[in-house]
């Protein structure tokens, strides 16, 4: 049991966190024809947009209510209504998600009430022209948590707006996918579910929208993602599977609305987590695990064995949001690594159970300084900006989480499921081995001076 520490410091240096509204926006981009609308000043949207673009390298639909000084002081409801009107009529999103920002939160606007009023007025005003747009309220204050909290709030908002009681649908799962799952993770999860003969609705589903495919036309809203129709049928399933602690509020609400059983798996990384998924799918499907899944498990066992050689006893410092952190700590410690320092973005339930020496709710400077204090490490796991800490610690960096701005294709990384766990185990072992290879077969201290070969050297007499 390691209680999370919050370092007493007024100055955050190199934040690990991004803002919750960014997370909420991203979740909304995982819905077909989704459009997030940040209620704040232009910069709130611009910064989030630029960072999302740098990470995904895709067009990111994201809008702003563009509050100015006057609206900030007098209240931004008019801007919000104008923005919604413009978007509904011009871009015709299937889901329009309104994400308040620190600015509007600070004014304590009663957004929920405002939104109801706006929806009523616009419905009356626009009539048919309103179309099928689902208006979602995704309240994720800037002040609490980071990406995953915003994401969770947006998904809960979608459930709130869309979920209705439906007849159960055998052999179908509604999967509430956490922010820690990449496109590659979602692909793998869907494949695994389908391998058991089940079907599923993923909410959100970035694997259809931000997976990097080249569309044939230009779209002002997200392309792909959870289909609009599926949102009405979130309750038409035999069970709810939620991935990540931060999906619990959404899962609980959906369960309450639709009377479905919930299974929440906090991570899908690590053998035990994958086994839990297998057990769940076996139960839901009534089928035994298919050959491919069994084979993948066996391959994972071999990968764990192969990887532990380089990994045992090595020190891994990790920075990630809570649910991603959980998975990374799990696989690192499963391989026999020690985690001297883990840094995360917020106090989340269950973190105290993680087998780490120190758990800090802090920033990337904490990662660097606390790990240095602890005697350094052999590997860093974290988002791209953790490269600075990794260099200072003379350790390689395995990039996970958000943002990853210095590489392409990160959304296709898969670090969950039997295969993904295998990949991350290999990645850990190889990163450590490659880093240590510099010193392999070299003396532990500066080498003695070479005795040069000279032909004048004394030669034995006999």
């Amino acid at each position: 049991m390691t209680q999370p520490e919050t370092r007493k410091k007024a100055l955050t240096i190199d934040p690990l966190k991004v803002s919750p509204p960014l997370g909420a926006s991203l979740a909304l981009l995982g819905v077909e024809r989704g459009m997030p609308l940040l209620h704040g000043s232009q910069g709130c949207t611009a910064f989030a947009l630029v960072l999302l673009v740098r990470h995904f390298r895709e067009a990111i639909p994201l809008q702003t209510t563009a509050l100015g000084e006057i609206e900030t002081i007098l209240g931004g409801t008019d801007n919000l209504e104008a923005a919604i009107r413009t978007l509904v009529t011009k871009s015709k999103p299937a889901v329009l998600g309104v994400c308040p920002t620190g600015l509007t939160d600070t004014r304590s606007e009663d957004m929920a009430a405002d939104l109801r009023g706006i929806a009523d007025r616009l419905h009356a005003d626009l009539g048919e022209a309103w179309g099928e747009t689902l208006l979602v309220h995704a309240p994720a204050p800037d002040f609490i948590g980071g990406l995953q909290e915003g994401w969770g709030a947006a998904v809960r908002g979608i459930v709130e707006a869309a979920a209705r009681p439906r007849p159960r649908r055998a052999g179908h799962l509604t999967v509430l996918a956490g922010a820690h799952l990449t496109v590659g993770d979602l692909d793998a999860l869907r494949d695994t579910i389908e391998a058991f003969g089940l079907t599923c609705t993923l909410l959100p589903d970035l694997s259809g929208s931000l997976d990097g495919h080249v569309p044939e036309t230009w779209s002002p809203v997200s392309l792909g993602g959870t289909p609009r129709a599926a949102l009405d049928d979130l309750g038409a399933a035999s069970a709810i599977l939620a991935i990540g602690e931060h999906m619990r509020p959404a899962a609980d609400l959906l369960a309450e609305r639709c009377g479905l059983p919930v299974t929440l798996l906090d991570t899908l990384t690590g053998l035990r987590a994958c086994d839990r998924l297998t057990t769940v799918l076996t139960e839901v499907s009534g089928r035994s695990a298919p050959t491919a899944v069994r084979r993948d498990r066996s391959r994972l066992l071999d990968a764990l064995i192969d990887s532990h050689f380089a990994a045992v006893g090595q020190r891994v410092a990790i920075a990630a949001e809570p649910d991603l952190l959980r998975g990374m700590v799990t696989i690192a410690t499963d391989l026999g690594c020690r985690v001297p320092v883990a840094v995360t973005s917020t106090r989340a339930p269950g973190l105290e159970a993680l087998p780490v020496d120190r758990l800090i709710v802090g920033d990337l400077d904490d990662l660097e300084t606390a790990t240095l204090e602890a005697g350094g490490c052999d590997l860093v796991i974290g988002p791209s900006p953790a490269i600075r800490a990794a260099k200072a610690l003379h350790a390689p960096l395995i990039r996970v989480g958000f943002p990853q701005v210095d590489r392409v294709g990160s959304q296709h990384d898969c670090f969950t499921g039997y295969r993904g766990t295998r990949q991350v185990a290999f990645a850990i072992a190889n990163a450590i081995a490659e880093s240590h290879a510099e010193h392999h077969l070299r003396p532990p201290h500066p080498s003695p001076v070479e005795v040069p070969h000279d032909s004048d050297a004394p030669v034995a007499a006999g």
Partner: protein
Amino acid sequence: MLSDRLAPVFDEPGCATNRAKTDAQKKAGCKPKGPAPGAAAGGCAFDGAKISLQPIVDAAHIVHGPIACEGNNWDNRHSASSGSDLYRRGLTTDLTELDVIQGGEKKLWKAIRQAIEKFDPPAVFVYQTCVPALTGDDIRAVCAAATERHGRPVIPVEVPGFVGSKNLGNRLAGETLLEHVIGTREPETTTPTDIALIAEFNIVGDLWQVMPVFEKAGMRVLSPITGDARYHQVAQAHRARASMVVCSQAMVNVGRKMQERWGIPYFEGSFNGVRATSEALRTFSRLLVEQGAAPDLIDRTEAVIAAEEAEVRRRFEPYREILAGKRVLLYTGGNKSWAMVSTLQDMGMEVIGTSVRKATDHGKDRARDLLDGADQKLFGAIPNAEMFRMLKDGEADIMLSGGRSQFVALNARRPWLDTNQERHHAYAGYAGFLVLAERIALTLTAPIWDQVNGPAPWDAGDTP
């Protein structure tokens, strides 16, 4: 009250937008009409101010606000440094709900102290953002006290995002420099050929491409504002003999007020392309001689220009044939709207259109002249869908723009090159001209364009 300090900025006489206005319009200030909710793009004033000041590499830049303002934003600029990388650290007070309720001044005070203890910077910039502005944190007072306490400048930059656009932020940053920085320190030595470059931010090393040329001509960049600048270099800008405003809308106020206060002549120019660079060098040499530099500076400068231009011609040869006649859609801003046109034309390319959204009147005129008066080639904002259509229909062979519009080109499967701040290559001056030519050539000839535009097997027709 913040608005009191904003009025003069909106009333910038150096601002082309403003000059063209009637008196009545002028009364309203040169503030552009507010952005449309649900149909806006672009950053806020804080964004603009940070862009302008952050290139001061040895200063600590502390953002006073909730996580959104710095957590989504730090180290996302490609300004380069030849020394300290303190400017790349993400420093913020990361306000929580409690801070908002109790007020954030005390936290800011501590944050400043921590930054100074950890990094020992020559100066600290503190950026005010929307939330603490709304709750009334008095960062001026905190900064004044901290300046006193720590014996070094702690400078308030009052730029809550809601006050306006990124461009306004640029100017507010300029005002901040004029109020707090420029003129606060004397150079160790001065020369008659000392210059200042205003609003050149050394994006991926642009500055370093022109520095050697200035050196060859015998001019010294006393004060880069603010690309690769050390704080003290900005502080001594008032001893420059001439200055150039490189990105015309950003920080034109700095050039004008330096002229007002210290009699330093300034001009608007560009390092985009050979012609613009030569013109900038000529103007500098003329101004410096007017200010008392030895008259042979003009000849020396001409000699450098001649040599550099000849070298560019020679080294451009490999690209000539590849680029000849290729059609470019240019979607950029500021004086790149015209300077890039001339650059691309010098490369033998055809500019089918340029966006003049953010250009001055002067810039629009120059662009129009370069495009043979064809007004239809001067665009405002092009809707993405229309841009997509133009590219998909093959009206251009390549688009040059910033990162935001890249996916319009890429989804249309057309070559695209970043010419804004996120690019990885420096295009300034003579050297940059060649780099740009190379990048355009490499991009145009990359085999992937054939591949991504070729038919899929299921579209080939001869398969089921």
